[in-house]
Structure formats: C-alpha cells, structure tokens
C-alpha cells in the first residue's frame, strides 16, 4: 500500500478518537502514581494534532503533516507528553523528508523514528517504567516484522502486541523517570500511564491502516 496524506490524516483522527475514549482510564492510572492528568494531556494533544493536520491540503507531504502535528501537539499540551510526542512526530517527519507518499517500509521507518525521538527527548532507558517500555519493543517488533517482509499493517499490528506486553511489564518496574520516579517501591504493581496510552496510540494506528487498506 502507499500511505498518502489522506491516510496519515485519518491515522491522526483515529488516534484522537481512541485516546478520547480512553481518557478517564488514563487519568485514573496517572492518579495512582502521578498527577491524574495523562488522559487529559493526550486528548488535548491528539485533538490539536488532528485538527491541525486536517486543515492541511490534500497535497501536503508526510513531513509537513508530521511537523504540523508536532507543533500542534506541543503547544496544546506542554506537560511531559508534549515534548515527547512532538519530538516523535518531528523525527517521523525527518525520516520522511522529500517523500510525497510513504511505502510500507518507509512508514515503518517513520514509526521507528518516533520511538527513537521519544527516547532521545526523555533520555529514559527501557526498564525505567515510562512510555519507552511500550514504544521501544513496539518499534523493534515493527522493524523485524518489516524486515521479514510484513506490510505496514502487519508490522504495526506486531508493534501493538509488543507495546501491550511492554506496558503490562511496567507493572513490575520501579519508576526511575518522570513524576512517579519519587515513589520508589510504591510504584510497583501499577501500569505506567504513558506506556498504557502508547498501546492505545499504536493500536489505533494499526486499526487505521487496516481500514485504509480495505
């Protein structure tokens, strides 16, 4: 498949819908080990990203779409999620530089760039109980599926399962980055909200790609 402006825009729109539906659960998760606003931040951010990219013309290239989403997300949110997701989208934009549409492999490459952007911005290592613990295994799964010839849908589906496992695994971790890092052992037993929302985001991307394909 080729992933064009229309598909990218619908991806942002589908993420926004999925996150809005998940908002209260994410706030509740953040209430346990953070400040209870993660669902709000994600909803604000993806609504702003969706609105900003949907205002772009049909001729917008992927880089413009990702950069527009980055800026909109960042300015709507601030918080931790703002710079993390904004950097993710900027990196995706950079990886797509010069292309007018994305092939399956290029989309997976952009997806990997997102995970790398979050990692660079937040400087968190896997195991520190952050969204990195969902994004890094997700990016790895997508890359290896793609290397084995999977299309974008299959690769992101593999990413979504890996993210879900990764998020589940944060329960056992002691937070070492972000707001909950001060909890020490008291953070054990609870899923990291940023990892949980990453699952929602990645699953929404997979669904959106599936819908675009058919």
């Amino acid at each position, binding site marked *: 498949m080729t992933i064009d402006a229309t598909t990218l825009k619908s991806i942002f729109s589908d993420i926004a819908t999925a996150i809005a539906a998940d908002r*209260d659960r994410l*706030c509740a998760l953040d*209430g*346990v*080990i*953070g*400040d*209870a*606003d993660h*669902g*709000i*931040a994600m909803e*604000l951010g993806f609504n702003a990203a969706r609105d900003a990219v949907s205002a772009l013309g049909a001729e917008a290239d992927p880089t413009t779409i990702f950069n527009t989403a980055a800026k909109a997300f*960042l*300015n*709507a*949110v*601030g*918080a*931790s*999620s*703002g*710079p*993390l997701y904004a950097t993710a989208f900027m990196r995706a934009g950079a990886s797509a530089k010069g292309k007018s549409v994305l092939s399956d492999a290029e989309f997976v490459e952009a997806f990997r760039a997102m995970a790398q952007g979050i990692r660079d*911005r*937040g400087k968190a290592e896997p195991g520190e109980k952050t969204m990195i613990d969902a994004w890094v295994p997700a990016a790895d799964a997508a890359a290896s599926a793609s290397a084995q010839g999977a299309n974008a849908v299959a690769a992101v589906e593999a990413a979504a399962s890996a993210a879900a496992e990764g998020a589940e695994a944060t329960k056992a971790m002691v937070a070492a*980055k*972000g*707001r*909950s*890092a*001060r*909890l020490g052992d*008291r953070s054990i037993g609870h899923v990291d909200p940023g990892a949980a929302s990453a699952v929602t985001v990645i699953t929404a991307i997979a669904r959106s790609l599936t819908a675009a394909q058919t």
Partner: protein
Amino acid sequence: MKTKKLINDGARAVDEMLVGVLAAHGKHLYAVDGSPRSIVAKDGPRPGKVGLVIGGGSGHEPTFLGFVGKGLADACAVGNVFASPPPDPIIECAKAASGGAGVLFMYGNYAGDVMNFDMATEMLSMDDIKARTVLTTDDVASATRDQKQKRRGVAGNFFIFKAAGAACDRMLSFDDCERIARKANDATYTMGVALAPCSLPQTLRPNFDIGTDEMEIGMGIHGEPGVKRDKLQSADRVVDDMLDRILAEMSPSRGDKVALLVNSLGSTPLMELYIMNRRIAERLADIDVQIHATWVGNYCTSLEMTGASITLHHLDGELQAMLDHPCDCAMFRAG
C-alpha cells in the same frame, strides 16, 4: 460523584482564569501580544538586568504568576493545570524579560517542565538570547539527601524565586544571579502533608484516594504519593514529624537564622496553619534557631487540596539581604 467547582468549562479554566487575573491586576501584569499564556511584569524587565522567567502548571496559584512583579520574577509561562507550559509561551516570556544580560529560567524539577524549558532554551539560542536554568528541588520528601538533584520543587519556590528576583533587581551579573538562585535552592527545605485530594477542572474527580482518618506525609503538590501513609495525628505531632525531617537535613547551628513559610495546599484554613506555626516557633526556639520572618497562608496550592507544608529557608547574610529586598507583585508584596 463529581466535585463541585465554580467554573464554566474545565477545558477553558486556565484561559478564563488569566483573563480574570489581568482584569484584576492590570497595574502589575500584562500578557504578551498574541501569547496569552505569557504573563509579564509591567515594572520588571529593563536593559542590563538579568531577566527572571518562572513557570509551570496552573492550579498552584498564587504560584507561579502571583510572583511576577518588580523585585521578583519578570515573566511567567503558564501551563495547563498541573502541566508544564509548552516552549512557545516560555520563549515569549524570555524575549519579554530579556534585558540583554541573560535570562534565568527557574521552575520546579519535573520531567515535563525540564523538557519544555530545555526545548525553549535550544530555540532561544537561535535568537541570541542566553538562557540558563536553575531547577528548584526543595521537597525533602521526594528523594534521599544524596539525590537532592532528583527532588521536586514545591512551596519553597517562594523563597528561591524571591532570592533570585532580588539578585536580578539589584542588577547583579548573570553569574551572580545564577549563583544566588542555586544557593537559595540549596538552603530551602520543604515538607508537605495532605489530608484530602483536589480534583482537576477537566475531570471533577478526586485525584487520589485517602481514608477518612488518614494523611499522606510528603505528598507532592500534584497529588503524587509521598513517603508514608499514616493515621491522622495531632497538629503538633504532624509538625514534629515534618520538622524532624527538615532539621535533620538542614542541621542548623544555635543562633542560625531562618525564614519560615507555613503554606496551605488549598483548603486548610489559616486557623490550622497558625496552630502549626505555634508548634514550629516553639520547636525552633528550643534549638535556638531565630525566625527572621514568617509567612502563613496560601502561597503554593494544589487547587483545593487539604493539607499544608512547612518550608525553612536557611539564611546567611546574603540570602537575608535578598529576602529583605522589596518586591511588589500582583499577589505578593514584601519589604
């Protein structure tokens, strides 16, 4: 069950608040044109002066924007409730505060704030504005002593910003302003206790659960869990527990001077704060520590959270001079 608030729409609460702030405090404050989340002191920034830009999430009022004014902060970047401001309003604040001698960014040490202010710093370097950052890390409860750099900034911001603002207002060099800001942070120790949660305007749900007879010692100002959950004790016992932790770190000598802040997290009334202050004064007198000045009231809140914090600011001659330096802000005056 939803909590009750006098708001119109949770999503618009911060912006509507800012309109109300400017309506009330037009003599002290204005917003940068086209950037309503960048609040600037009318009588603050000037050529040759180091600009002091503070900022952070909303919901802690009068922290942060109440401390913008002559002698204190030049500008404040305002985030959503309990969320760092994005880089754009920070950048606008820095430009407005800049007098060509450098801009000091000061805010509480939270991952979100650090990332957003750091992005702003990178972008400002393209505009030839030099920004340096001093994080506040006064919350004794939030990491062990050897990890002070990991601690959160809480109500002690008040003293730390005050010291830095005075240094800037006295036209000290960028290096000196930064040095004094760091020294003030190192000399400031806060412990908080929470009895009941607040709720975010967007959710109207209590942001943590706590038993009807419990308290959380060391609770963060966004409802982040603290160091322990306990049965509620008498005010004197709670004060003793908090002070013991602070004094163990500060280890004052006899005759030392401190400034004191007894702060409500929102709903705890003055009566209780003064009852706490009675015990604090007694305890400090016992160890011959002199209280140079005391502030009691709502200085760094968490919306309507119930609870209080105690901050000691360990003074030397320089910090005392900074503390006594006059300031005139929309929501705070001293000197």
